[in-house]
């Protein structure tokens, strides 16, 4: 019992989230296989697992975020942990989970890539072009990591909004999460971010590292907001 309290929180929360993510990836992978081997007639090139899973991984992280306040926070305080330790531990677990859900698609994609080179698959798998566009797999990984973390934080924000302020104000937090998604799209997918049209610059022209920096600032802002919202929260009984 010598490890700091927040680390005990991080370990337990990560272990739960990790199990959920294993379920999620198992199901997603089965769907991917169905797509590759059965639902492949409309196109002669099928996207690799990295591209295939991106959208779903974001949604998974949003859902995990939404579960956070209800599944973990009250339990921590009842087990005699401070809100601060609960927050720091949960935040660390979320960062760990974001790393994990970034790595899994990368690794599966790499295996697919190697397989495609070694044996002849019945379909053409495109496991590389996504990385060409974004400037290499490291950049793609950083982009996915920042995206999933942002989605997690948006979910966490919604859940603390409902937990703390009830369901009417909770809708306000959903609205706030749309602002977060808008900003995130504005940074990463400028062509689809219609809601942010009024903002002045065109990120397509911007440097990748500048986008990553902007995205990191958004993540830090959200982490700070979560600390403010959980700092003195009343625990439901």
């Amino acid at each position: 019992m010598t490890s700091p309290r927040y680390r005990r929180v991080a370990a337990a929360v990560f272990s739960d989230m990790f199990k959920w993510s294993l379920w999620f990836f198992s199901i997603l992978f089965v769907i991917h296989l169905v797509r590759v081997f059965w639902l492949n007639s409309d196109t002669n090139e099928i996207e690799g697992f990295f591209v295939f899973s991106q959208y779903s991984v974001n949604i998974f992280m949003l859902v995990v975020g939404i579960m956070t306040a209800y599944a973990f926070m009250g339990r921590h305080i009842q087990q005699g942990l401070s809100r601060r330790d609960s927050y720091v531990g949960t935040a660390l677990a979320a960062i760990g989970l974001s790393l994990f859900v970034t790595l899994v698609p990368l690794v599966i994609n790499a295996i697919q890539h190697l397989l495609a080179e070694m044996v002849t698959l019945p379909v053409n798998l495109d496991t590389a072009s996504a990385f060409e566009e974004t400037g290499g797999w490291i950049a793609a990984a950083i982009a996915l990591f920042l995206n999933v973390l942002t989605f997690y934080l948006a979910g966490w924000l919604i859940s603390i909004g409902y937990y703390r302020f009830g369901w009417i104000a909770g809708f306000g937090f959903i609205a706030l999460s749309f602002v977060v998604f808008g900003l995130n799209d504005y940074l990463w997918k400028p062509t689809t971010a219609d809601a942010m049209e009024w903002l002045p610059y065109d990120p397509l022209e911007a440097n990748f590292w500048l986008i990553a920096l902007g995205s990191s600032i958004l993540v830090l802002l959200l982490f700070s907001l979560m600390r403010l919202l959980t700092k003195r929260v009343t625990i439901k009984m």
Partner: protein
Amino acid sequence: MAASVQLNHVTLKFKKFEALKDVSLTLEAGKIHGLIGRNGAGKTSLLSLIAAFREPTSGEVLVDGAPVFENPEKMEQVAFVYDKDYKEETEKVKKLISLASHYRPHFDTEYAKQLIKRFKLPVNKPVNKLSKGMQSALNVVIGLASRAPVTIFDEAYLGMDAPSREIFYKEILQDQEDHPRTFILSTHLVSEMDYLFDNVVIIDQGTVLLHEPYETIEAHGVSVTGAAQEVDIFTAGMKQLNEQQLGGTKSVMIYGNLGDAKRQEARAQGLEIGPVSLQDLFIHLTEEAN
């Protein structure tokens, strides 16, 4: 290991409603404190402040002399067991117990196993599939085995059958002997649990009506038992809390102390003088306050 609890001028407001009104109270370390009050008296509000589930509107709540809210060392010393809603809890019993052992520095796994056996808790069942009584037993196992210096049981027995409640009470007494700590037991079942208490706190409408060692409670009243007619004559003009009659024998609870002279007079008339029950005192005090 035991810790003291102190409330200094604590007020708790929910919008306009005052759940606690300027409560000051010290709960000595190493004792079993009974907290009794009617529904809505403020028991759970008071306990949730000690467990740092919320902050008081004004005043301070201390554990071993330091404010408890967001104080990691002090919060760790408090275990708050209450009638938790487990409808959505799909985890298994053993998972919740292992979580408690993960977080609670004094958790005794062996003791938890013994208790699981005594309560016949099915450890592989999801918690929301347990009966109400079994869910309560799970709470009790976690609360007892955590061995937190301040252990609070807020109506922890709800849904438990009489034999299980008996096990619960016996375990409190036994464990208190082996590993003394500060227990706070809030209850409606006064007559069933009063023998557990070292100290009694009665609260009503957010204020403390009485806070005393259990032994001195009897100074607040007596029971007079004997032939119905003689009891009636003897107790005429006294404040009666309760009366029971069986055939020609009657027993009347009197509020207030009898002087030595009155006691001798009773004895001379063949009347029996006994202690007043906490239950009767509780009913009387809260009725009077209302």
